[in-house]
């Protein structure tokens, strides 16, 4: 079963994060991703740039709208994703509670519904 761990950080992101802390955070993410990989459960991992660099696109009433910024200003913003393949929700939870991001924001666990593989949408199991 595939699960996405969605990382949400409070916005605006704390501007006063020190270099040491960024270093410590990166070390923690390195170790976390390595542990996921060693356990053979990691499918993909991606950490995103801040919403300051977001561009939103929509087509409304046939009209293309390109907006500088996120699609909505919220208290928390999406910041990264880990996709895991584990037996069940308890295993996903065990990994989510170890995610360094849980200390800075929230880690949301979402079971995958379908994914696109070899030219077709298939179930996540």
């Amino acid at each position: 079963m595939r699960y996405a761990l969605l990382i949400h950080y409070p916005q605006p992101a704390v501007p006063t994060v020190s270099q040491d802390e960024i270093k410590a955070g990166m070390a923690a993410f390195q170790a976390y991703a390595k542990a996921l990989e060693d356990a053979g459960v990691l499918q993909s991992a991606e950490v995103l740039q801040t919403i300051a660099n977001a561009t939103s696109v929509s087509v409304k009433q046939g009209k293309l709208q390109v907006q500088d910024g996120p699609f909505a200003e919220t208290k928390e913003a999406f910041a990264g994703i880990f996709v895991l393949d584990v037996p069940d929700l308890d295993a996903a939870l065990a990994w989510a509670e170890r995610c360094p991001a849980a200390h800075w924001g929230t880690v949301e666990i979402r079971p995958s519904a379908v994914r696109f593989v070899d030219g077709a949408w298939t179930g996540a199991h």
Partner: protein
Amino acid sequence: MDRRALSETDAAARAEELARAAYGRLLAILAARDGDIEAAEDCLADAFERALRTWPETGVPDNPAAWLLTVARNRRHDLRRTAAERLTGPLDDAVRSAALAVVEELDPDAIPDRRLALLFVCAHPAIDPAVRTPLMLQAVLGFDAEQIARAFVVPGPTMAQRLVRAKRRIRDARIPFAVPDRDQMPARLGPVLEAIYGAYAIDFPLVAGLAPRESLAAESHYLAVTLAELLPDEPEALGLAGLISLSLARRPARETGGEFVTLDEQDASRWDPELIESGERYLRQARSLGQMGRFQIEAAIQSVHCARAVSGETDWRALLTLYEALLAIAPTLGARVAHAAVQGRVEGPAAGLAALDAIADVAVQRFQPAWATRAHLLAEGGRREEAVRAYERAISLTTDVAARRYLEGRCANVGAMD
């Protein structure tokens, strides 16, 4: 000590040595007066800084702790006086010289140790349980917020903010720097013990793959031993010092070349005999007071395990009796699972499995040790297919690399026996 001139590095080394040995004692004395830990920390930091500046020229004073305390307290007086002057105008000279006279040559050895009161303040019921352990590490051992944050894997500013909030609360709510009297002691000692134990038992691999595991074990050992020395008539304080000493003693044998080694398989000759001896001493002292408690039982369990270093074998029946006693007073999930494992050892795998099945707590379904224990018991009982499934479940709940590798090895062995 002679007052010869020192190099700056010598002075720095001496100050650092003092900081380790005397920090908590000095801070407790300074903070006890008005309950302002933050101000006391600032003044003590000033005093250490001044030591680093002046000791290279003047030499280390005869009583360096007294020197530091005097400088820190003078600084505190200065700050308080400046604040008072701002409100009421200058103090007259008579008052000022009287104030200075009082603070000359304070010998911390002649002043009662206030660290005990400080520990009770840190674990006061009005302080958030989550900040009690960090507060002790800072106030008694002098760690800065950044170091504590790293140990607890939380962002530095978050930890700093929590600590500041707790210290202001202590000052503003006037939490008294006092050792509880006999009536209150049983209720108030518990949280102090929990906070010290918390530094030892902290779920370290909070971030999977990072291995700060047990990095606070030495500090919690120091706090537990300090508490036991300050409260030699409290059996549970002695029990905790015994428990931490005895578990810490086995630390060198817990890993071999990065591989996880279970207690049963550890090479007992690698255990620390001095720590075992001091742990046994605390435990004997506790027992002589004739009042059983959770930490004493846990220490006794550790003591039975450590006895293998001498006898060459483990007395599983004694362990079963101790776990039964532990469950009667502290039936935590961890204790219940450990009890089931020991019962399986003594009465056979079926009995152990029955004990596991009897755990009603729903949390057991995602409690990794319960699944690992179940898998071992099933394998031992020859129920190999079920054992493999239980191992797989245990592995899926394990985020620690070494423990995962160990379980995968066991699982493969059981599967290969067909």
